């Protein structure tokens, strides 16, 4: 069996990521660890967005809100001295899922540009809610007094432990996504993106499936949020700002919409470029923007799609036109 390039790229990335703690220690640059961990957390967020955006055609411009909700759940719990991760994290998942039910139920009644606008509006609402939460730091955010406590299992104040936890969870989320996308449920979500009218006509009440996908994605982003709170030891409304949602969309587009590990590639490239370019100039987005446009124009399926397409051509020298 031929291994697809996507799989190879994916394996290489995970191999590299596994070595980052060692590299950081050897070179004595702990920043690498920090950077790679942030990248993986955002990759989980992008992966979750890809479930609805890449596979379901639901372009949510407010997806970072669920990361924020997950992070705030951990932060607020800690503020009230509930430090057990066994409580915080499930709560982060449940609460972000609950918000996703409500936001999905509202926004999924529309589509196209309206869907984008409504998700954006709902997210901004949550952003301003965060800003107005004076009890929890308002605009300034809320420092996390101590990391989530998984006593007996793992010590998250140990940053390398947190790193490998994030690493494991990223693989876990990728695996879950892979199962979901190919399952009966996944077929329904993909079908609804392709041709919703037809889906209805063959007997699928599509709304409930799309809503479920939206909630799964929301919960997965909530998990990323819980991780992010522990990563930065801090939560603030900025995590929910619409530009953060935009970043997630860019990661998905960069890596390749609708390819499973595309968002991971996207997150990697995004974070690396951001880091490299912002070292050169404060106006790094001036360079990043055109780069993004080029990718979108010339590699429709993102960077991964670019690889796969070449392979497709090799595989089928003659196009089958019936």
């Amino acid at each position, binding site marked *: 069996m031929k291994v697809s390039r996507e799989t190879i790229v994916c394996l290489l990335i995970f191999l590299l990521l596994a070595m980052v703690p060692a590299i950081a220690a050897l070179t004595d640059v702990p920043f690498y660890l920090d950077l790679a961990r942030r990248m993986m957390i955002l990759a989980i967020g992008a992966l979750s967005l890809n479930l609805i955006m890449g596979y379901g055609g639901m372009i949510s411009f407010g997806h970072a809100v669920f990361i924020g909700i997950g992070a705030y759940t951990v932060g607020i719990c800690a503020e009230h001295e509930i430090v057990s991760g066994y409580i915080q994290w499930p709560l982060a998942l449940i609460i972000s899922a609950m918000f996703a039910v409500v936001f999905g139920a509202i926004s999924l009644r529309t589509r196209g540009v309206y869907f984008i606008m409504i998700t954006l509006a709902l997210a901004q609402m949550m952003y301003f809610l965060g800003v107005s939460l004076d009890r929890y730091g308002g605009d300034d955010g809320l420092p996390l007094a101590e990391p989530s406590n998984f006593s007996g299992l793992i010590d998250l104040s140990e940053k390398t432990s947190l790193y490998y936890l994030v690493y494991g969870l990223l693989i876990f989320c990728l695996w879950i996504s892979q*199962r979901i996308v190919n*399952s009966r449920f996944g077929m329904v979500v*993909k079908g609804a993106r*392709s041709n919703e009218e037809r*889906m*209805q*006509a*063959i*007997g699928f009440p599509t709304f409930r499936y799309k809503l479920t996908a939206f909630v799964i994605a929301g919960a997965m982003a909530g998990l990323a949020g819980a991780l992010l709170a522990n990563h930065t030891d801090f939560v603030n409304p900025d995590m929910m700002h619409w530009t953060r949602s935009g970043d997630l969309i860019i990661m998905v587009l960069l890596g390749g919409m609708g390819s499973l590990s595309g968002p991971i590639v996207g997150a990697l490239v995004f974070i690396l470029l951001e880091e490299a370019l912002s070292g050169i100039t404060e106006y790094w987005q001036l360079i990043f923007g055109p780069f993004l446009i080029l990718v979108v124009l010339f590699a429709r399926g993102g960077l991964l799609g670019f690889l796969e397409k070449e392979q497709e051509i090799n595989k089928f020298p003659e196009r089958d036109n*019936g």
Partner: protein
Amino acid sequence: MVESLLNIENLRKSFGGVLATDNLSLSVEPGKIHAVIGPNGAGKTTMISQVSGALRPDSGRISFNGEDITRSSPPNRSLRGIARTFQITSIFNEFTALENVALAAQAHDGHSFRFWQPAKKEARLTQPAKEALELVGLENRAQVLACNLSHGENRQLEIAMALVTQPKLLLLDEPMAGMGADESKKMVEILNGLKGEHTILLIEHDMDAVFALADQITVLVYGSAIASGLPEDIRLNPEVRAAYLGDEE
């Protein structure tokens, strides 16, 4: 008298000023092919869409199997056993022919909140899908992406997607639209094979096909039925000849 499977009573639907369905009544008997003919813009597709649930009538009543379905949703009607095909091919372009049909089979195999097993490997979906493809003569094209199928094959695929759900009533909206003579002939054969076992509401412009297949014909003009009866009666009906068939013989 046989109880009819589908009953349309006093159906009315307007788009702005256009009365697309005008007090239309029609019933389809089980096991029969009931053809609806009429000039372009007569309201045939609009009628089908109201029966399938894609459009809500302004007034009137649709009952199926003795139950009022006027207000039920399209998926609900599909699950009750009403399958439709579209005049303008409507399929899942990114999926293979087999996946298209398997997805239709899946819709009728319980809920789809199943998140773990790969659907492609489920024989209970792919097996009936293969059989349906065979029925329409597409068994050798199962693995081809739908967007790479020819127009005629797409039309056949539509039929397979409808058949795999084992519908009680098939709504076929111009299955031969845009087909060449050979493809049309093949489609007539396919539909002939369904005759007797399936109840079909057939919309078609190809008069040869209609007269070859139909047990009953209704003529639609400006949204209302101007005649309905056996094919030979319709052929001889002067009003129909004037309005639609043209005095050709």
